[in-house]
C-alpha cells in the first residue's frame, strides 16, 4: 500500500528526535452490513477506511497519531508532530535504523473462497431472507426475527524500527440471529451467531438455516421457563459460549498490561496454582478460520499458541511488544488493535478451556440440586477484581441428576479467580463461539470456548 522509500522516510522522521521504538501501521478496510427486521431489509451500509497509525516510544512513554490518508505530505506532517512531542518529553538516542526491512513470516495459512467483494448485496439479502423463513418455519410462536450480516476485507502493513515488516490480508463474515417467541403475554428471545475469518463459504452446507433454527429453539424452549432459584448452588456451564465467563472474569487479568497497572489478582502468581487441577486454558490465534485468528497481530508479530494455565498452574500472560519489553518477556503475538486509529494493547484471540476427560452426562448426573447454564446474554466484569455478573439466556434446573424445567431471569454473580478453584470437572466436548470484546474503547473479534464444566458453587440471582 505504501512503498519502501516512504516507509523508511517516515521511520526516519519518527526517529529523528531519538526513540526507543518507532512504527508505521497501514490499513485499508472495506466493510458492508445488512440488517433484516420484520421480514424486510432495514438497512444496507458500506464503509471505506484507509489510513496510517504512527507510534513512537520514548523513555517508557508511547506517542501515537494517525491520519485518514496515505498521502506522503500528511504522513510526514503527522510524523513530525509526533517526533516533536517525543523530543519535548526528554529526547533520547537516535536509533540506527536498519535500511533492509526483513519481512516476517507467519504459520497462519487459510485460503478464502467466496470474497465479500465478489458477493453482491442481493446474495446477502437472500441469506437474511432464508434465516427469516427458517426461524418462522421452526414454530408458529416465532413472531419476530432480527438478523444481521456483516463482512469486511482488510489489508494491513506494518514496519518498525526493529527492522521488521509484515503484510497480510483479512476476510471476515459475521451472521447474527435473534428470534422472538410469544405465547399469550410471555415473550422470550433466542440468539445465535456464526462468525469466521473466511468468506461467504462460511455458510455453505445449510449453516445459516441451522443457526436460525437453533436461535428459534432457544426462544421457544424459554416460553416454558419457570422462576430461577436464588442462592449458592452447583452450576454446570455448557460448552462454547460458556467460555465467556473465563474470558471476561479471568482472561482479562492475564493480559500483561494489567500487571503493569497492578490491576490483576494474578500478578506474581506465575508457576503457582490458581485453578483446580482440572483446568488447562489456552489462547491460540493460529487456528485456521477461527473468528479470533490472524496471521499477524496489530504490531506485526506472528500468531502463536500460548498456554495460560496448565493443570491449574499459571504458565503465562499475554504480551504485546511494550509489555513484553517492560516485563522482560517474549511477545506472544497478542498486541492487537481495532484499526489504524488505535494504539495496540495486549488482547486475547481465541481463548478457551481445554477439553477434559469427563462425559457431559456424568457432570449433569452428579448434581442433586443446581443449575445448567447453557447460553449467556453477556455480562459485566470488573477486571481488577474479577467480580462478574452474567445473565443466563438459556438455563435449566438440575434436579436429582437430570435436566429439568427451563429457568428465566437468572444471573450468575461471583468472582472469576475464586470460581477457577471451584471447577470440579471438565468434560470432553470442547466447542467455540464468536463474539466482540471491548477494552479501552477498542472492539475486537474474539472467540471464547470451553467444554461443559461443573462449578461446585456460584451465587445464582433469580426471581424465585
Amino acid at each position, binding site marked *: 500500500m505504501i512503498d519502501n522509500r516512504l516507509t523508511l522516510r517516515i521511520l526516519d522522521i519518527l526517529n529523528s528526535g531519538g526513540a526507543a521504538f518507532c512504527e508505521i501501521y497501514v490499513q485499508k478496510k472495506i466493510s458492508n452490513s445488512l440488517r433484516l427486521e420484520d421480514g424486510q431489509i432495514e438497512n444496507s*451500509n458500506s464503509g*471505506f477506511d484507509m489510513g496510517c497509525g504512527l507510534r513512537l516510544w520514548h523513555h517508557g512513554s508511547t506517542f*501515537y*497519531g494517525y491520519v485518514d490518508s496515505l498521502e506522503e505530505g500528511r504522513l510526514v506532517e503527522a510524523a513530525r508532530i509526533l517526533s516533536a512531542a517525543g523530543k519535548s518529553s526528554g529526547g533520547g538516542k537516535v536509533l540506527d535504523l536498519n535500511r533492509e526491512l526483513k519481512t516476517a513470516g507467519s504459520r497462519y495459512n487459510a485460503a478464502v473462497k467466496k470474497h465479500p467483494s465478489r458477493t453482491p448485496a442481493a446474495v446477502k*439479502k437472500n441469506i437474511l431472507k432464508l434465516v427469516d423463513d427458517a426461524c418462522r418455519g421452526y414454530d408458529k410462536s416465532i413472531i419476530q426475527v432480527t438478523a444481521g450480516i456483516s463482512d469486511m476485507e482488510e489489508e494491513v502493513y506494518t514496519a518498525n524500527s526493529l527492522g521488521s515488516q509484515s503484510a497480510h490480508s483479512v476476510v471476515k463474515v459475521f451472521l447474527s440471529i435473534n428470534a422472538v417467541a410469544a405465547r399469550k403475554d410471555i*415473550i422470550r428471545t433466542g440468539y445465535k451467531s456464526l462468525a469466521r475469518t473466511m468468506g461467504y463459504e462460511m455458510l455453505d452446507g445449510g449453516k445459516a438455516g441451522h443457526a436460525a433454527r437453533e436461535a428459534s429453539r432457544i426462544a421457544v424452549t424459554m416460553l416454558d421457563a419457570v422462576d430461577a432459584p436464588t442462592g449458592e448452588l452447583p452450576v454446570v456451564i455448557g460448552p462454547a459460549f460458556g467460555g465467556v465467563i473465563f474470558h471476561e472474569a479471568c482472561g482479562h487479568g492475564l493480559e500483561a498490561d494489567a500487571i503493569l497497572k497492578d490491576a490483576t489478582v494474578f500478578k506474581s502468581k506465575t508457576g503457582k496454582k490458581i485453578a483446580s487441577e482440572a483446568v488447562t486454558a489456552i489462547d491460540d490465534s493460529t487456528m485456521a478460520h477461527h473468528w479470533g485468528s490472524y496471521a499477524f497481530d496489530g504490531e506485526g508479530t506472528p500468531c502463536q499458541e500460548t498456554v495460560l494455565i496448565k493443570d491449574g498452574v499459571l504458565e503465562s500472560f499475554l504480551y504485546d511488544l511494550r509489555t513484553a519489553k517492560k516485563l522482560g518477556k517474549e511477545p506472544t503475538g497478542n498486541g492487537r488493535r481495532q484499526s489504524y486509529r488505535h494504539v495496540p494493547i495486549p488482547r486475547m484471540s481465541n481463548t478457551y478451556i481445554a477439553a477434559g476427560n469427563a462425559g457431559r452426562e456424568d457432570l449433569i448426573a452428579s448434581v442433586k440440586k443446581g443449575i445448567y447454564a447453557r447460553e449467556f446474554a453477556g455480562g459485566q466484569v470488573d477486571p481488577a477484581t474479577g467480580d462478574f455478573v452474567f445473565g443466563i439466556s438459556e438455563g435449566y434446573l438440575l434436579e436429582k441428576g437430570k435436566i429439568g424445567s427451563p429457568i428465566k431471569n437468572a*444471573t450468575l454473580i461471583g468472582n472469576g479467580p475464586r470460581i477457577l478453584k471451584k471447577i470440579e470437572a471438565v468434560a470432553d466436548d470442547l466447542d467455540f463461539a464468536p463474539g466482540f470484546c471491548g477494552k479501552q474503547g477498542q472492539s475486537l473479534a474474539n472467540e471464547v470456548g470451553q467444554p461443559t464444566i461443573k462449578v461446585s458453587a456460584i*451465587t445464582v440471582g433469580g426471581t424465585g
Partner: protein
Amino acid sequence: MKEGLQENRLMEICEKAAAKIPRNKADQWEIFAARSVENEIDIFGQKIETLSFSDSTGIGIRIFRDRSIGYAYTAVLDDYAVEDTIDRAIANSLVTKKDRLNYLPAEDDQRYRNNLFDRDTLFSKDFRQVSIGRKIEMAMELEELTRNADKRITGVSDASYNDSMSHACIINSSGFSGKYSTTIAMVYASAISRESGDTSTGEYFGIARDPAGLNIKDVAVNAARRSTAILGGRKIRSGKMDIILDPMTSAQFLSVIASSLSADAVQKSKSLFKDKIGQKLFGMDIDIFDDGTLPEGLASRPFDGEGVIKGKTPVFKDGVLETFLYDTYTARKDKTLSTGNAVRASYRSTPTVGLSNFYISPGKNDPADMIGAVDRGFYIMDIIGLGSGTNPISGQMSVGAKGLMIEKGRLTHAVKEVTIAADILGFLSSFRMLGDDLQFVPGSGYMGSPSAMLENISISGK
C-alpha cells in the same frame, strides 16, 4: 473565528460530493460530514503512558431512491473514494425495503420550529488556550491526588485527560444546510483500593467545555471515595428493603428505561412502554426531560442527525408518560412530529432514534436526609450486568449491586455480591423520594439523575 473556517471547509466537502451524485439514480440525498481533532493523555506512575492525537474527517451519504434508502461512508476524501462511496450508497438502496414514509424531513415534520439555541454554549473560545504541556500536568495531578486521597488506595489504574473539538455539517437535496462546532474536555480516574485481602475499584470523571473548566481535585476525591467506601463488602440476607440509588447509579437505571422510550423500539413491539401513554407509571410526581438544548449538556446540538431542530421534550410529567422520542420516519408512522431525536454516532453510521440530554428533574431532599429516613435499607453505589440482566421487552431486570447498608438512618457496613431482581414497571412504581443533587453521566446520550429512594425492593444475597 477559526471554527467558522473549519465549518466552511466541511460545507465545501459536502457540496463537492453532492455535485457528483447522478441525479437520475437518486430521488433525494443527504450528506453528513464531520471533523474531529482529539487529544488523549494517559498517565501511569507520574509518567506519560500514552499521548495520542488525531485529526480525522469523513463523510456519510444517504441516497433515497424509489422510497428505499442506501448508506455508505468514507474516511478518504479524494474524488475516486467519494465517487465510489456514492455508487455503494446507490447499490445499497437497491436491496433495502421500500416504505412510502422514506423521504427527507420537511418543515412540517418538526415539533420545534424556532431554534432559540445559543450555539456559543457548545463551543469554548478558550479551548485552545491550554497547552499540551498543561494538559499533561493536569492528568498527572489527577493521578497524584487520587493516589494520595486515602491511604487504602494502592493504585490508580487509569488517570486520563482527553479532549476533542468537533465540527459537523449536513446538507440535503431539500435545501437544508446546517453546521455547528463543539468542544469537550474530560478527565477520568479509576482507583484501586485494598484492605485485609479485599480489593475494590471506584471511578469518577469530570467534563467541561474547556480544560480550564475541569475540577481535578473533585474527580480524584470522588474516585477514591467510590473505591474505598465499598471495601470489605459482604453479602446480606435476601429480603425486601428500601433502597437509595446514588445519582450515578440511578442514571444507569434511567438509561435502561430511556432505551425503551424510543419510538422505534415501541413501533417494533420491543418496548414495555407500548400502549402506556397517559398512564402514571412512577410512584410519585416525577418529571423526566429529553433536552437537546441544555447549555451544559454533552448531547446538545442545534439540530439532530437529519437536520431537525432539537428542543426540550417532557417525556414524563408528574409521573405520567407523555410521549415517546421520535425521528422523522417514526413520527410519520405515528402521525406525529419529530422531537429531533435522530442521532448519529459518527459519519460511519446512519441516523437512528436516540437520546439527547435525558434526565430526571431534581427533587428537594438533601441526600443525607433521605438516608436518615430509612430504617433498614441498601444505599447502592455501583451496579453491574445492567445490559445483560435486563430484558427491555418483558421488563424483567436482574443486576448485581454494591454499596452500603443503611441501619436506623445511618450508613453502616459495605455490601457486595448481591442482586436486585425486579420488573421495570414495578421498579418505577416504587419511587418515593428524589434528592436535590442532579448529576449527569456520559453514556448513550447524556443521562442525569438525582439520588432516588425506592420502597420495598427485592434483594437477593445469601
